[in-house]
Structure formats: structure tokens, C-alpha cells
């Protein structure tokens, strides 16, 4: 019974990680039809921001939850102004440009931080559950994923800014006729997506050994989760993160991590073959 609970927590945790690492990408894709292939490096940048600032004496929660998102958001603003804004409406071109950005960031981080692995210890101690030991930090990650999902849903659904954002995405001309600049809306949306990526990077930092190439571990999973989820930001990401998280973790527990990862990818191919526009393209059309 205890073991079942432990396994349950691990599965929730796997889903939570997928939600966290794909939230930023989902916002940018769902709202702007832009796929940011440098998303993995945005996460890595968030991780470095958290680690460096923590090592410089900043409180660890401040470093993870404030500094990391801020740094990446500012970086995102630069990227949007310099690269993305010239390519709106050209999905493939933005993918290629951000792929270039991904390589450039990886190279730049290698030059700055060196090709070594670094990290910080987790701030939350483990605790005993029955005869098992559980990571307190994993529960924190689950909590953060819930906060992000609920926050995002409320922001889009209930706030004025969310309304304007959704409006601008559906009809840019109409929005500007109401006096809101679509260009600014895009900028803010991209910055928000970047901040979410930074937050995820910061939260994940204590769990991993971070190096400049770490982004590659995230991007494929985030990318697949978002595309399989389809156009609806929150429900899409939640649905596919739930599906993939359960499948990969179950296979990992039953067999090996390699099989777990391959199972996730195979399910992704089958899913896209059956539902070419993603889960929400079919089932939850028009939801947030």
C-alpha cells in the first residue's frame, strides 16, 4: 500500500515535470503560433540564473522563483524584438531561427560557464512515509506545476490582460481597432512564456546536474507535449502531459528508463497519426 502511494507520487511528479517544462512553450505556441525551439536553452538559462544568483548569496527560493523567471523574461524580450517579430506568421521559419538560437545559446553558455556540470543542493529534506523515503522536493515540484496551471488558466480566463491577449491572437486587426497594439501584446506574451520557461529551469535546477547542453534533455519532451496537446494552452498541455507522464513513468517502473522514453515517443507518433491536430484540436476545441 505504501509502495502504491510512492509510485503514485512518482507518476504525479513525472506529469508535473512535463507540465512545468512545457508551459512556457505552450503559451507561446498556443497564443502566437510560434514554436520556440530554443525553449530548452531558455530553461537552462533559468537554471544557471538560479544557481549563479544563489551562489552569489541570494536566498534559494528567491533565486528559483524570482530571479530565474526575470532573467529569462528579459532575455525573451530581446529575442522577440530582434528575431521573432520579423517572422510572425511563418511557422517553419521561426522554428529554424529559434533552432539557430538554441545552438547559439548552447555555444555561448559553453563559453561562459565552461563545459562542466554544476548544480545546487535541494532546499527541502526528504521525509519518511511508512517504510519509504520520499523526496520533499518532488512534492514541491508537483505544487509548482499546479500553481502554474491554475494561474495560467485564471490569467487567461478571468483577467482583462488575458482577454486582450486571446483577442489579439484571434483577430489582431480588431484588437488594434480597440486601441491595443498587437505588437505589444505579442511582446508581453513572449516574455510571459519565457518567464515560465525560466521558472521551470529554476525549479528543476536543484534536481539535475546542469551543463550547457542540458536543454536538449527538455526540448524534445516539451515540444512533443505541446504539439500533441494541440492549440489550447492549458487543457492541451495538461492532457498530453498527463498521458505521456503516466505512460513513460509506468514503463520506467516496470522495465527500464530507456523503454520508458521510447514508449513515450512511440505513443506520440501514434497519437499524432490518429489526431493530426493534437488532443485539443479534436476534443476540447476552443477552450483555454
Amino acid at each position, binding site marked *: 500500500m505504501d509502495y502504491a502511494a510512492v509510485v503514485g507520487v512518482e507518476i504525479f511528479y513525472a506529469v508535473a515535470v512535463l507540465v512545468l517544462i512545457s508551459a512556457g512553450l505552450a503559451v507561446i505556441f498556443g497564443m502566437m503560433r510560434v514554436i520556440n525551439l530554443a525553449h530548452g536553452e531558455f530553461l537552462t538559462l533559468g537554471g544557471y540564473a538560479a544557481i549563479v544568483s544563489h551562489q552569489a548569496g541570494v536566498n534559494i527560493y528567491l533565486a528559483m522563483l524570482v530571479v530565474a523567471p526575470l532573467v529569462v523574461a528579459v532575455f525573451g524580450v530581446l529575442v522577440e524584438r530582434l528575431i521573432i517579430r520579423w517572422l510572425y506568421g511563418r511557422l517553419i521559419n521561426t522554428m529554424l531561427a529559434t533552432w539557430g538560437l538554441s545552438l547559439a545559446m548552447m555555444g555561448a553558455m559553453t563559453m561562459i560557464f565552461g563545459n562542466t556540470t554544476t548544480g*545546487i*543542493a535541494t532546499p527541502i529534506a526528504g521525509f519518511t512515509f511508512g517504510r519509504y*523515503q520520499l523526496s*520533499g522536493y518532488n512534492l514541491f515540484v508537483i505544487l509548482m506545476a499546479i500553481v502554474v496551471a491554475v494561474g495560467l488558466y485564471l490569467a487567461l480566463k478571468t483577467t482583462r490582460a488575458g482577454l486582450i491577449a486571446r483577442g489579439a491572437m484571434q483577430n489582431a486587426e480588431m484588437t488594434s481597432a480597440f486601441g491595443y497594439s498587437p505588437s505589444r501584446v505579442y511582446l508581453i506574451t513572449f516574455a510571459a512564456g519565457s518567464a515560465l520557461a525560466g521558472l521551470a529551469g529554476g525549479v528543476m535546477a536543484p534536481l539535475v*546536474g546542469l551543463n550547457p*547542453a542540458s536543454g536538449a534533455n527538455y526540448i524534445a519532451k516539451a515540444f512533443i507535449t505541446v504539439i500533441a496537446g494541440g492549440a489550447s494552452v492549458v487543457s492541451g498541455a495538461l492532457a498530453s502531459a498527463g498521458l505521456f507522464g503516466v505512460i513513460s*513513468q509506468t514503463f520506467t517502473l516496470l522495465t527500464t528508463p530507456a523503454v520508458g522514453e521510447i514508449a513515450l515517443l512511440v505513443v506520440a507518433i501514434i497519437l499524432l497519426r490518429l489526431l493530426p491536430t493534437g488532443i485539443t484540436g479534436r476534443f476540447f476545441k476552443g477552450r483555454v
Partner: protein
Amino acid sequence: MKLNRRTLLKGAAASAASIAMPQVVMGADNIKVGSIIDTSGIFDLYGKPMDKAVTLAIEEINESGGLLGRQLEKIDYDTQSDMALYTQYAKKLTRSDKVDVVHGGILSASREAIRPTLRKSKTLYFYNVQYEGGVCDRNIFCTGITPAQQAEVLVPETMERWGKKIYTLAADYNYGHITAKWIQHYAKENGGEVVQTDFFPLDVADFGATIAKIQDAAPDMIMSALVGGAHLSFYRQWAAAGMNKKIPMASTTMGVGNEHVVLTREEGDGIMMVYSYSKELDTPENKAFLSKWDARFGNSDDLHELAVATYQGMHLWAEGVRKADSIDREKVIEALESGVSFDAPTGKISLDAKTHHAVTSVHLIEVGDQKMNVVKSFGERQPVDTQGVCDLEANPDDNQQYEISI
């Protein structure tokens, strides 16, 4: 780096007197030492200190008058962590540079990529890295430690301390699979058992499910043969769950990439391993070596097992040339087989004629305060894994890497 190297060497030769560097004279008379190591790309953490070790050894030998009255000349290529470049540079070293010996290779893949080329061109090859064992080829000398040399000591020592039920975690490639077998072998031999062995591809960084599985199996100890940056996450997540207080851990791989420095004290303390080298070794040879290294490169922060093995490989080869009184490949091999030894930083090291592998000292080490503290030393361990499958005295034409079956 070819152009730079030539111009640099020439510059160095020209200004040798003024900056008191060992004199390097360019010319046909030099003994050419080829070196191919990844000094950039994802393996540069391992390769850069190894390259320094080659440089240091060559400078030492040249300072003491060279070999056979001739100076050594280093010809090196950076393989950029790209396996395909190994074959190319090996061909270059043998065909156009015509070197007398090649030292190098880090991953087993890189060694297997260049071994045939060097054998065909009759160029003596030294592979100076801890690896999975089993290579049987008269043209190669392997001076790094192999799994049996580690597991033979580590498994019984830790089982005696912690208990008989072992859970093994290993990197999912050649080294990990073979090391896992040896752990199982020595566990059984000492009356223990391996309850489960899990393999992880090198890019797996999430160990949550595994930690749950381990708890369900409730072993007395963990044996880790995890490798690389992503696997570092395991130690971190293990400690985050508080497991490091409950189940002790030993490793055959931790520390080679200086993992014990990246991990915090709480995360790393208490992990045990067996290596041939630790910076904390309290011997005159090691003290002298460290001070030479510091004097030459500023500090020894990046120094690790593989760099020391490379340094020792260079010196063993030099001993062989001295004993053979020739640079001829056949004579050097015979001299090396007849038994040469070197009083190395790790302790006395010699070569086994049957397998061309190193007979070396190993040390039981416990991580404490981000240092590799030596608990106990064991002299002259034979490469018993390779000895079980390879006998070059009986079959000098053997040429393969045996998969050791236990």
C-alpha cells in the same frame, strides 16, 4: 591545431634559452610521440588534463636528457569528442607524421576506432584510461585500471561494512554492462547477492522512479557505475529523498569527472570507491608529482585518475624504450613484456606480459568534505579480468576485445 603547434614549437625552440624551457630541437632526429585526445567538446573535462599530463611527461623526459640521446616531440590532435575524427587523425599520425608511438583515446569507442589502424601500420599504441577490460592485442598496452581491479577490492570491503544485498545502477553502455557483471561476480564470491541491476542511457537525468524501486527492493547498499553529467542527477535526487542517510553507496565511477567536488558535502560524504589514484595519497611520489603539476599548470584542481594514468603510461613507455635501447616497435614491446616498472604517483606500477595490462596499486577511498580520502591501500593488483580471457604469450596474434563472461 597543426599550424599553431608547429609555429609554437618553433617559437619555443627559438626562445628556449631565454624562458628556461626544456630545449626542443626540431629535426628528423626527434622521437615523435603522437597524442590524440578530446580536448574540446563534451569530453574535454576528461581530455584537457590528459593532454597536460602528456605535456608534463614529455617535458620531464626531455629535461632529463630525452630517450636514447634524442628529444621527444609531441604531435597532438584534438578529436573534438567526435569518434569519426579518431580514425582520421590516427591515419594522419601513422601515414604523414610517421610517429613512433601513439598515446590516446578516451572512450572505448575511440580506442576501438583507432586500434585496427595502428595495428595495421605497426605503430605502438598506449591506451591510458580506466576501461571495461578485455582488449587482447599485442600492439596495445592498457595502463588504466579495469573493473576487476576495482570490484575485487570494493565489493568485499563494502559488503563487510554494510551488508550483503547489493542494488547495482550502471550506465547503459559497454563499460556499465561489464562492470555490472564483475560486481555480481564478486558479490557472489563473497557470499552476497545483487538483487537488481538497472541500466541507464547516458542522457537519463530523472531517477525518481528508480529511487522508488530501490526502496521497494530494500538493499543493504548501492553500487553505482553511473557516468557523466546527466547521471550526476542521481546522487542529487538520492540525497534529496534523504536516502543517503538510509542506504550507503559505493561507486566505480564517481570522482573521475570530479563529481565529488560538484556535489555538496551532504550529498557526497560517505560514498566509497576504489581507484588507483587520489590527490590525497600520502606518498613522496605523489607529493612530488603534485608539486610538479602545480608548478607547470598553476593548480591541480582538474587533475583526475585518467590524467595520472596518462602520465604513468608515458613513463612506462619511456622505461620500455630505455630498456630496449631502441625505438623499434618489436624491441620496445619485448622490453615492456620483460617487466618494466615505474614508481608512480599511484604507487608502483608495472605491466603484465600476458595481457599488456597494468599491474597497479589500488586504494579504498571515502568521500569526505569533497575530498577523496584514502582509507586503505592495496598493492599490485593483477588485471585478473583480462587475464581470464587473454594470453598474448600463448597467442601473440590474438586481436580482439573479449566480452568477459562470468
